[in-house]
């Protein structure tokens, strides 16, 4: 689903964009990410923000358009989270 993981232009995080245009069922995404241990910081309908400090993640932002912003120490950690998150998100593409 995600073909690209690149540092976001602000330099503070990594950005992954879906290979094709998608629309996510955000309540479903939020529920499953919480079940997987991601703590919901804020649900703004079009965007949801999570944290999970135990796995080296400062924050994860999920956009309804499928875009992800992963803020963490390095690309390897971002890649590990991307793999987990992709498995969850794929189930909620509408």
């Amino acid at each position, binding site marked *: 689903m995600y073909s690209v993981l690149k540092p976001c232009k602000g330099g*503070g*995080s990594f950005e992954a964009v879906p290979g094709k245009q998608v629309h996510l069922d955000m309540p479903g995404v939020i529920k499953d990410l919480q079940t997987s241990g991601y703590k919901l910081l804020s649900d*703004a309908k079009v*965007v949801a923000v999570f*944290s999970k400090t135990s796995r080296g993640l400062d924050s994860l932002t999920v956009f309804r358009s499928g875009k992800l912003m992963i803020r963490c120490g390095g690309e390897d950690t971002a890649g590990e989270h991307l793999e987990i998150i992709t498995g969850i998100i794929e189930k909620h593409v509408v």
Partner: protein
Amino acid sequence: MKLVSLISGGIDSPVSTYLMIARGADVISVHCDNRPFTDETFMTRTKDAVQRIATHTGRELELVIVPNGDVQADIARNSERRYQCVLCRKRMLLTASKLARKIGAEGLITGESLGQVASQTLRNLMTETAAHDLPILRPLIGMDKEEIITIAKEIGTYDISIRPGTCCTLVPNRPATMARTDSIQENEENLDEALIDTAIERSETHVFGP
């Protein structure tokens, strides 16, 4: 003359804050902390910029940090997507106005100048200002970016303001550039003003000496 200045940690607002202090105003800076929709960089940059202005002017300065994340989420959940930035600025002006009344300030300062970003149009400025009864001073309104950067470099805030950080994740792909006052008011009716009062109650004040 006591004024409240909205300061973001970007290039412009430290300059507008400085210019009014240089004119002799007693300025209290207010930063709306948009975490978790930004990272902590903006707050750190703001603190460092206010410290730099205090050092440059030889004045003790106060900075009030107001948690604004819940207000931002409320806008995203309950208004049209394209109005996010206009409504966000309007809510921040309302926050600053409420604080100004609380501390007896007579006006507000912003770092806005025309046309720098897509949503900073004359129409949007008018819409954002509607229903505010305190004067809003915009010392940078007619300046171009190079002029603003020159002053930022002179006072030492430029290098702080360009530190990398995560920009606001709630900015829409196509922000409104010609927001109508009546449309904005309709959208505002769906927003919860109590969130602003709660945010002010949870605000923290920091004092920076010269």
